[in-house]
């Protein structure tokens, strides 16, 4: 029997998606269903002084007084109200919900429900904020000694801006009430996050709340925490109306109200010897959390852990803080803080290379983490540490050295970035989650029961491949249950590049346990004789994994994936428009369970990263996204996509399923710094994103000499 792992088997959800049969949330309808709309604040900060709501009796109206439990969206800190009471902290903060059987009756609802606001002075500068959501300190070695060993000390400040996830399906849910219970269907990544938020808000026992993920049209982190808010809104309205309520955001509302990537300011002070050895790294990270804490603490955590990049250095100090500002909360987005901090360190490294007169590849090769080296948190890396192999492969494949030489002084540039990405929850996160996965014997094979969601990345297919091989049955004999909290155990959220490495491993263990119990029988034989049974597996940390939340030291992740990007581009000398010509993306991911889908993750993440670097510009004006439309928030189109050459390197991680690590997030860590470094090769000294023609013109002072200074 052909093995499934490592082969491009046909994806489980493919045929339904190409025929139009797949049901997304807006494709569903329930008897008696009405539509819900959200009335929001129009000011960034202040107080609600009066509410003017006079609507005919056929409208259902709900506000904070209709919430049976405590009025917050349960996630980490209980600081974010589900519906504003008096205080307003950002534009588009939800205040009142209105429902109606005819969705067209809601089109002008914003003009029919009004508020009197008492405005207060807002603050949009995270460094001027007096509210800190989270501070983190990482210390390794003796920083002063490291600087004493340096010949040169190089400083720099690097800034990144908001980015919108821009899943093509907007956020949407349907809440269906019944006697003392609530079911919510929706486009979402984390069924049990939504479940927890509903249990708290509705003050219901857990078994009276059910969350069902419908086919989800992209997430990228944008459907990690926000669906909890939206599900709470729909549930409040459904409870009041005693009818199912559908709430689907239009694109404008989705852009105005939902989370974006945290803007960041990263400052580096780095000691190096003349020959290019890094002796000390002092890094300061500031993240703009927006108005409520949401996930900022953990975004900051992943950000600071990756802030020193994939480099060995004995003396490191990293300080990070996530600050409150008066914009809608920023949240999860593929990469989760690591793209911001690795942008800083990778652009900084090219500036160091320029100052020392050393080739950027050589500088990285000197300092890259090797097996046995320790990271900034003191984690000793295993044999699968692959910074050097990916660097060498990408440089060779792209003919970096030749192009770097030949294009010097032209309007063509080539630049690179080296990066890594921890798989799974940070630090003790996986232990706290204690995720479960189950496998149920069927008449023909087995059925996977996990809360991990299919959001396009191929969860169902990849999990089925792992189970098929571990159980020793054909891929087609494995079914995958939909992510429905009434049936599947809590496998944790579908985030953090953990769905393959962590949940996949749990399933592999389930399958091996099931195989043991089957003995010499096939699943069909056993089923006929004894009927079905279910095997459940719960997360246990690999032996020897240590972590301290107090000192932020130890094994931050079970394993890391490694990547190197080389970007080739051309700058129009008249318009300053940048055309990305080619991206070479080499990724070391342990084992590609489904090589084609792994390449799909790398290409997709790379394009998203190039978009962030060059064209995706969230314009914030008075705390409000001024370009909240696809007409002027631009993402890469088929015409903009650069040619991409993907190389996959496999160095198995001992505790991953068939050696696999995470792949989903890492591809977005590298493109932006590689683009900026390629622009540097063209003579532009940029330290901020996005590199729009306007920014190139305004800030991109031409470097004086070839090679820069």
């Amino acid at each position: 029997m052909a093995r499934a792992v490592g082969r491009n088997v046909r994806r489980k959800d493919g045929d339904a998606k190409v025929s139009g049969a797949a049901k997304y949330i807006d494709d569903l309808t329930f008897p008696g269903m009405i539509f819900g709309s959200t009335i929001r604040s129009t000011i960034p900060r202040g107080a609600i002084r009066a509410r003017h709501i006079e609507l005919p009796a056929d409208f259902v109206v709900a506000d904070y007084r209709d919430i049976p439990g405590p009025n917050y969206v349960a996630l980490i800190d209980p600081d974010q109200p589900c519906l504003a009471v008096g205080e307003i902290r950002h534009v588009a903060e939800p205040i009142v919900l209105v429902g109606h059987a005819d969705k067209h009756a809601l089109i002008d609802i914003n003009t029919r429900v009004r508020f009197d606001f008492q405005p207060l002075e807002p603050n949009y500068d995270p460094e001027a904020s007096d509210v800190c959501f989270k501070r983190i300190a990482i210390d390794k070695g003796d920083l002063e000694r490291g600087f004493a060993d340096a010949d040169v000390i190089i400083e720099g400040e690097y800034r990144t801006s908001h980015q919108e996830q821009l899943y093509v399906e907007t956020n949407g849910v349907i809440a269906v009430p019944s006697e003392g219970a609530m079911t919510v269907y929706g486009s979402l990544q984390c069924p049990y996050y939504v479940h927890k938020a509903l249990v708290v808000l509705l003050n219901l026992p857990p078994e009276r709340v059910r969350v069902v993920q419908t086919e989800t049209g992209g997430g990228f982190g944008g459907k990690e925490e926000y669906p909890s808010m939206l599900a709470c809104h729909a549930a409040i309205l459904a409870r009041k109306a005693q009818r199912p309520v559908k709430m689907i955001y239009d694109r404008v509302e989705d852009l105005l109200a939902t989370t974006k990537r945290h803007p960041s300011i990263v400052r580096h002070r780095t000691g190096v010897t003349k020959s290019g050895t890094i002796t000390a790294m002092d890094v300061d990270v500031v993240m703009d959390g927006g108005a409520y804490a949401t996930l900022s603490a953990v975004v900051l955590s992943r950000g600071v852990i990756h802030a020193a990049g994939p480099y060995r250095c004995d003396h490191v100090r990293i300080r990070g803080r996530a600050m409150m500002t008066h914009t809608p909360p920023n949240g999860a987005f593929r990469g989760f803080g690591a793209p911001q901090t690795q942008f800083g360190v990778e652009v900084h490294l090219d500036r160091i290379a320029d100052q020392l007169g050393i080739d950027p590849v050589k500088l990285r090769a000197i300092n890259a983490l090797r097996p046995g080296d320790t990271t900034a948190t003191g984690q000793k890396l295993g044999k699968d540490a692959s910074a050097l192999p990916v660097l060498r492969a990408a440089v060779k494949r792209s003919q970096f050295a030749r192009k770097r030489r030949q294009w010097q002084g032209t309007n063509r540039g080539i630049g690179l970035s080296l990066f890594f990405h921890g798989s799974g929850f940070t630090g003790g996160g996986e232990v706290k989650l204690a995720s479960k996965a189950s496998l149920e014997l069927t008449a023909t094979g087995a059925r996977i029961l996990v809360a991990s969601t299919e959001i396009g990345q191929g969860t169902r297919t990849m999990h089925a491949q792992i189970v098929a091989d571990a159980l020793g049955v054909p891929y087609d004999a494995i079914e995958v249950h939909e992510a429905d909290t009434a049936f599947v155990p809590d496998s944790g959220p579908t985030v953090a590049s953990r769905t393959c490495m962590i949940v996949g491993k749990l399933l592999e263990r389930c399958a091996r346990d099931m195989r043991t119990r089957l003995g010499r029988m096939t699943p069909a034989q056993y089923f006929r004789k004894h009927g079905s049974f279910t095997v459940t597996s719960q997360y246990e940390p690999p032996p020897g994994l240590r972590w301290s939340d107090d000192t932020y030291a130890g094994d931050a992740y079970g394993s890391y994936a490694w990547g190197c990007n080389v970007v080739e581009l051309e700058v129009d000398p008249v318009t300053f428009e940048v055309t990305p010509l080619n991206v070479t993306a080499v990724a070391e991911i342990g084992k590609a369970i489904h090589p084609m889908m792994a390449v799909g993750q790398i290409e997709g993440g790379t394009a998203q990263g190039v978009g962030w670097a060059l064209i995706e510009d969230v314009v914030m004006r008075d705390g409000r996204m001024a370009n909240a439309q696809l007409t002027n928030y631009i993402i890469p189109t088929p015409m903009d996509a650069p040619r991409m050459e993907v190389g996959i390197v496999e160095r198995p991680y001992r505790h991953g399923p068939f050696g696999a690590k995470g792949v989903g997030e890492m591809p977005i860590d590298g493109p932006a710094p590689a683009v900026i470094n390629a622009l540097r090769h063209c003579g532009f000294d940029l330290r901020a994103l996005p590199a729009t023609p306007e920014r190139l013109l305004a800030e991109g002072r031409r470097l004086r000499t070839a090679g820069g200074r």
Partner: protein
Amino acid sequence: MMRIKINGKVRRVDAHPMKRLLDVLREDCGLTGTKEGCGEGECGACTVLLDGVPVDSCIVPAAHAEGREVVTIEGAAALRTGPALQDAFVAHGGAQCGICTPGMIMAATPLRTGDSLDEIKTAIAGNLCRCTGYPAIFRSIQSALKRRKGRRGIRA
């Protein structure tokens, strides 16, 4: 009452003439395979064929389709290029989350064997995908266009 031929069958549609064709298809005809991504003709998720030409059904009023022929993803299998494209989008990774896929496939259906990569890009230039970064979509379409008649393929 409007008469619109949809996926080969003439339907009588009792809707406001300015109702979006997208809503007529999804709400009045139950054809939910056509998706909405932006509502302003920017993303192409709602692409259908109107008399054989791809249009964004979110900015086409229903009256505009009166007496004409509409083909949606549910009718793609009957098109010359439909089955090969549908199969190739699964086989070559062109479909990930799938929300852009119906529109993407409909936009690609007028392509012919021998069309270049530039022609492929132009055909789907108005269709956004956030998952793939597009190369897998190009490979899917190229593969579908390469097939010969008799292998569920496309005749030039």
